């Protein structure tokens, strides 16, 4: 057989990977088209250079103010804002994660019947399409200013986020483990406990930690549209041109987010 090969095969010494798009004409027109679009797009931007220079001056003033943060004069407001934000973060993460588990199970093709699957995927799609700020504006209009609207907003966003990622994880579990449990005569719920939960638990905890620090950051943002928390404090400070207090708020946010990120990373490493 090897003798046959030696006779028929030419002595070829070059080889190139086949291109992703085989049709050369299509390939080149796509490349040229994309480049032309980019050039035209940049060309269509109107830049007012005088305004840019003005803006740089204002920015310089901002930065200068931020270099001398004022923690003292508005400390009570800052403290209240943070406690509100932290409460909002923890409660919305806890409730959101709990509610996301059934939605994730429903949104996993390997566990849920078709109609439940479609329903849960629909819910996730809605939750993920609507940005937190839009939801917050809507809920502030419904339930008034304050942290309750913020809590609802973050819970809603958490369900969509967690359910989507968790459902993908559930779909990738080792099906043999579940089959083995079904073969013992286990019920669906027992299979869920022994066969599914055990496989996705590390990821569930890791995602919850991650979501906790996302929720804290978001709580600062949605406060700006009236959903309570530290964002409210920040907004008020900016409105009053108290850049020192605003700087203090931002510094505290940065510290807390860094601490949250560090501890969640540590925790995730521990459970692996």
């Amino acid at each position, binding site marked *: 057989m090897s003798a046959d090969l030696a006779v028929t095969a030419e002595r070829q010494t070059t080889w190139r990977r086949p291109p992703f798009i085989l049709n050369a004409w299509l390939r080149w027109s796509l490349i040229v088209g994309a480049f032309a679009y980019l050039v035209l797009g940049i060309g269509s931007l109107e830049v007012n250079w005088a305004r840019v220079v003005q803006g740089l001056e204002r920015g310089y003033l901002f930065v200068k103010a931020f270099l001398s943060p004022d923690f003292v004069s508005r400390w009570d407001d800052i403290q209240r804002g943070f406690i509100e934000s932290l409460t909002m973060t923890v409660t919305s993460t806890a409730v959101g994660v709990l509610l996301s588990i059934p939605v994730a199970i429903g949104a996993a093709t390997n566990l849920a019947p078709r109609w439940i699957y479609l329903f849960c995927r629909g819910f996730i799609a809605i939750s993920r399409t609507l940005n937190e700020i839009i939801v917050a504006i809507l809920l502030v209009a419904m339930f008034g200013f304050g942290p309750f609207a913020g809590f609802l907003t973050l819970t809603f966003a958490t369900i969509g986020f967690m359910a989507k990622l968790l459902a993908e994880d559930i779909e990738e579990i080792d099906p*043999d*483990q579940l089959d083995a*449990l079904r073969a013992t005569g286990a019920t669906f719920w027992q299979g869920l406990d*022994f066969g599914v939960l055990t496989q996705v638990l590390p990821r569930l905890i890791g995602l919850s930690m991650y979501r906790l620090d996302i929720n804290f950051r978001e709580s600062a943002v949605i406060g700006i549209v009236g959903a309570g928390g530290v964002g409210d404090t920040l907004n008020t400070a900016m409105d009053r041109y108290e850049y020192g207090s605003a700087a203090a708020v931002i510094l505290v946010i940065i510290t807390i987010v860094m601490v949250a990120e560090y501890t969640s990373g540590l925790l995730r490493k521990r459970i692996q």
Partner: protein
Amino acid sequence: MLAIEGLTKRYSTGDLALKGVTLTVAAGEVLGLIGPSGAGKSTLIRCVNRLVEPTSGTIRLDGVDLAALRGARLRAARRQIGMIFQEYALVERLTVMENLLSGRLGYTGFWASWFRRFPATDILRAYELLSRVGLAGMENKRADALSGGQRQRVGIARALMQDPKLLLVDEPTASLDPKTSRQIMRLILDLCRERGLAAIVNIHDVVLATEFLPRIVGLRAGEVVFDGPAAEVDRAVLTRIYGDEDWTAITQRLASQRERRDRDFETELEAEAA
């Protein structure tokens, strides 16, 4: 005890995996199911405990048609059928003890199993089986910390926790080295003999199959093409099951296996006569 009749399975892709398989297994009988990859061996045993839904046909276990059961009655029937998997299919992140106790799920309520509060008799049984399969003292190890052979022992113990009448064994040795494979086959066969269990063993390795399993069933493209004692497996039978190939090496080993067995039998007779 187990009577399969006219079992047909057509997958939703249109593939006909089983074409009217008829097969009976007596109580305490152990048989080896051999055949090329894709012949339907796995599908056949998975139809028995309904991990795969049969398209038509009946599967009677002591007279009850498993193919017609649903819900709680299906789960009750599954308790009588233990299954052992090629890749062990243990719950990797749980302890050996939890894996053994998971064999009792069919007998345990949800909350009892959620809090891992199993009856004392189950725990006693688990400890007994653990030492029977040679894993005494390993109860608190996590399944993913064990070697392949140890995992398969846990898999065997879990199946026996169910107190089954029938074992379905799907390629128990395909992921193991030759020595461990033989130990595992011997363990399964010994346990079946001790407890009077019937078993259907899917197996790729023909030499291993004929050595350990007295009855061989050959499956080819979803049909039974051979059903007889292991001693009758020869060149013609292998060709019928797997198709043309140079079978010399395997048939020679089968022949020497038989000679050895006959010799052992004669020495046994002589010893008895003396």
